């Protein structure tokens, strides 16, 4: 077996492991719920095995040049829906989402903006000594579902500014995915 074959086999196993970890949990349930409710299709579930996310905690810190890693490396799952219609009444979706997650996740903050046609949902749950955060962002044409593991230190940042940090998590995950 030559080096190329070994590399290809290793890559296949790595990808398979990633897919295995990205299935069979609430993350996938949320993706399916969005698909069924809005009649849309996601572009692919990405398991960012080696990516860490850099999230600047406040505008001041961004200007100051300091950024903090908020999500644990290898913990990020990401599903993206691009350029599709998310035009159904969103309070119904919120009810369905909360029903789907209420046994295992705690809703931290939920913002609905009819003006901007944007919905942001942030859920939390304990994962050993750490916490998992699930951020769902839906606007008129796009949606993103991100699940990541947070250390307690970074959980505090999320609690202090839930909406801002939640959006940062989504933005940073999306940027990494596109790189």
């Amino acid at each position, binding site marked *: 077996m030559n080096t190329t074959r070994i590399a290809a086999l290793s890559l296949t196993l790595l990808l398979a492991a990633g897919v295995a970890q990205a299935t069979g949990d609430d993350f996938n349930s949320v993706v399916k719920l969005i698909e069924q409710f809005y009649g849309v299709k996601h572009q692919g579930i990405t398991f960012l095995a080696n990516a860490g996310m850099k999230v600047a905690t406040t505008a001041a810190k961004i200007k100051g040049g300091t950024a903090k890693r908020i999500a644990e490396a290898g913990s990020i799952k990401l599903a993206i829906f691009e350029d599709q219609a998310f035009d159904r009444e969103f309070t119904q979706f919120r009810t369905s989402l909360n029903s789907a997650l209420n046994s295992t996740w705690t809703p*931290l903050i939920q913002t609905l903006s009819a003006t901007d046609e944007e919905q942001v949902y942030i859920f939390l749950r304990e994962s050993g000594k750490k916490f998992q955060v699930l951020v769902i962002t839906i606007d008129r044409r796009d949606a993103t579902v991100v699940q990541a593991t947070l250390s307690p230190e970074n959980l505090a940042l999320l609690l202090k500014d839930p909406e801002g940090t939640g959006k940062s998590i989504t933005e940073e995950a999306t940027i990494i995915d596109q790189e």
Partner: protein
Amino acid sequence: MKLLFQKLAAPLLFIALMTTVAQAQESRIQTTTLDHLAAKASQSVDVNMDERLITIAAKLFSDKGDEKKIKELLIGIKGIYVKHFEFENDGQYTAADVETIRTQLRSPSWSRLAGFTSKADGNLEVYLMMTGDKVGGLAVLATDDRELTVVNIVGAVDLEKLAQLEGQFGVPELGIEPGKAKPKNEQ
């Protein structure tokens, strides 16, 4: 005597714990009656931070500068719950909607505090729940023609520092100016 104490210790501890839980539950006001307003609102925010999350946050802030102030503020707080609605037109919520909140705050355990005003337009009502000589909870009801906000803090909150929570932990900017607040029924 020692045996009697051992026999009574567990039930007494249980009763004490249940009392604490009951007090915490009493100061949590129910806001689900407002959920239907999200369909009419141009913007709605719903925040739920329970004791476990607050405790974690309080432990993790440092003892320096602004973080120290936040840490001190969070000590004793057992929950922060917010419902905030903004509307594009007047009359999107009714007096009956607000009454579902005020009804809970009229119970004997709650007192409305005078002296709180808002830099923003509209009406600001601040209510305090006392458990003995300690603050057990706080509720803020802010209304104007196109906005409705309910902030419920469960646990001991320093009234002088209430305004510091604005803009943090999901609490919206309400323009709270504490003044010399005291229960209305003491005036």
